[in-house]
């Protein structure tokens, strides 16, 4: 067996989607990888001194600067003449990526640096106690977008990070999900084979923050995709080259699994709004499987 790149013994919650996602990513990229990690759950549960889960060289600096630290690593590797043999990954959670780290990430994209940025999207600031982020979905109940008699939760839809990444003209952008691990690993392998900046955003359920059973992590992730709420898309040079086709299921199938949407279940008006978000995705990315494409829905 090869050197374990993400060893057990980490302190992630039972059923943590992010720990699963992180392992899938590093295994796909392989031992010749250097990782720069933003502050967040992943850093906390995988590197509590004096222990570390990481089998690759790994550095954590701050909440918002993994993309810039990785830029320094990449520049150093070019200087050393080693860049062609080493992958550089910068990674962080949705807050560290789409909110506080967006500027550093945009800089990394714009400079064309040969780095894969991975965003583990669990749709809120989980490490600090489930506060809303720019990637928290519409109507989700978080501790800073609580549902109440005057609110049905988070008032804004998710920030369109893959489109923001694409607007930089970078060679590869994809979304993935821990509900589809082979697809995820295929995308990581493809990304690291492409020179330049790459962005992969991975949907990683958080049993604690989304309030579902740990055993449901994969199911919740899959259901998000199948409802059209987390389209799995792939862009090369800003051109959409593939989507995961679905036979769309109603969004309730996804919402009802999670406590963060519990307040909506007797609120058909709000559910309709979420269904509209899904419908918009389905139309925009042409997600619906046609009779001639039957097999595509199971390719991953």
């Amino acid at each position, binding site marked *: 067996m090869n050197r374990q790149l993400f060893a057990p013994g980490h302190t992630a919650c039972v059923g943590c989607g992010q720990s699963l996602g992180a392992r899938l990513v590093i295994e796909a990229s392989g031992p010749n990888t*250097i990782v720069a990690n933003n502050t967040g759950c992943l*850093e*906390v549960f995988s590197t509590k001194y004096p222990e570390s889960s990481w089998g690759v*060289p790994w*550095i954590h600096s701050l909440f918002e600067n993994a993309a810039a630290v990785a*830029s*320094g*690593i990449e*520049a150093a590797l070019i200087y050393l003449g080693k860049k062609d043999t080493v992958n550089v990954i910068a990674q962080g959670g949705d807050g560290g990526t789409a909110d506080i780290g967006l500027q550093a990430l945009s*800089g990394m994209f714009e400079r064309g640096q040969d780095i894969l940025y991975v965003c583990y999207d669990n749709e809120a600031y989980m490490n600090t106690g489930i506060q809303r982020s720019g990637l928290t979905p519409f109507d989700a109940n978080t501790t800073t977008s609580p549902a109440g008699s005057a609110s049905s939760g988070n008032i804004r839809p998710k920030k369109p990070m893959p489109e923001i990444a694409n607007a930089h003209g970078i060679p590869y952008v994809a979304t993935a999900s821990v509900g589809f691990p082979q697809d995820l690993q295929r995308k990581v392998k493809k990304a690291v084979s492409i020179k330049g900046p790459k962005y992969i955003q991975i949907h990683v359920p958080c049993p604690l923050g989304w309030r579902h059973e740990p055993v449901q992590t994969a199911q919740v992730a899959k259901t998000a995709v199948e409802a059209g709420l987390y389209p799995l898309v792939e862009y090369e040079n800003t051109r959409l080259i593939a989507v995961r086709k679905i036979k769309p299921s109603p969004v309730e199938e996804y919402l009802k699994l999670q406590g963060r949407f519990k307040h909506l279940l007797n609120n058909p008006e709000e559910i309709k709004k979420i269904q509209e978000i899904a419908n918009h995705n389905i139309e925009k990315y042409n997600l619906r499987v046609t009779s001639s494409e039957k097999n595509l829905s199971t390719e991953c």
Partner: protein
Amino acid sequence: MREFLEGSQAVTRVVKLCKPGVISAYPITPQTHIVEGLAQMVADGQLNSQFVNVESEHSAASVVLGAVATGVRAYTATSSQGLFYMGEVLFNIAGLRLPVMLTCANRAISAPINIWNDQQDSVSMRDCGFIQFYAEDIQEVVDLHLIGYRVAEDKSVMLPVMVCMDGFILTHGIETIDMPQQEEVDKFLPPYSALYKLDPERPLTMGPLVDPEYYMEMRFAIQETHKEVIKLIPQITAQFFKVFGRQYHGLIEEYRTKDAQRVIVAMGSVCGTIKEVVDELRAKGKKVGLLKITTYRPFPHQEIYERLKNIPRVAVLDKALSLGSYAPLAVEVKAAFFGKKKQPQVISSFVAGLGGRDITKDSIKEIFRLLTAKERACEFIDLKPELLKETYE
């Protein structure tokens, strides 16, 4: 070789001699000539470095952090707001024990916005763990970069260094200086060999989460290392003298303090003006002197105590404030006498030159004049009281 160079240009030349593999910076006045110069050197193929143009100082500091963590010597420069924006990263670089080199072109802090010189920027960053040098002139700026890299990369140190040069006064001033030769620099400063680095051949985890069981020791180790740096700097400057023939104590410099009755303590380019005034007053028979502080972090308490304990009256000149308290350098000079029997009768504190207001020879003479038996705290020199009458009622 003697050359007539602008301060910023001199910095680019010495940085080139140090062969950093990665340079990253974000433009801010008055640091710009430095990074423009380095960019041109890379563009002209004279300097084999990766020049990373970033979108902010926060990222500039993060890029050099990442580069040094990968085992490559790196360089950045900034000023004022840029240094503050780096602030979070600066603490982190020191905590990760990465020997980054940073040139700070000292400039005032907003508000009100002001691009001219004082030392509020770097003085405010005194707690971040960087070793801090303050240069009096351009020659010293050049030499402190060489000394700085040597100290920073010493295997017993592994801490970042900030060389502070007064904005415009030194960055845009022109002097004839002795620019070291490459062979001399190579002899004095060997290639960077990291104690630890990000290397797939030998993976390790840097920057882990550290809980209360371990955190104190990590911080204590940095504090102790700073004490070792106090001892190391004079050793490195002695080696520097052997190679380059220029002598520095490294921590402090005494100027006509023997038998002095009144001494000003100061940092940076103002020391040049003070020396002129000291010479003038000495010519008139006044027993005055200067104690220049070159190394502000680690703070050379013992050296200051030894040099000032028999001086009756000491004036500390700050070009920065700690709003709501006494002036920062004055507090630390006073602290050098903490628990000591011998000490000056008077340690008065003066603030001058904020936001680029000229500190003239008359300003220095005024400080000597005010250095009486009455101890003064945070006394502003060259203040215009008529400007304080504005009201908004």
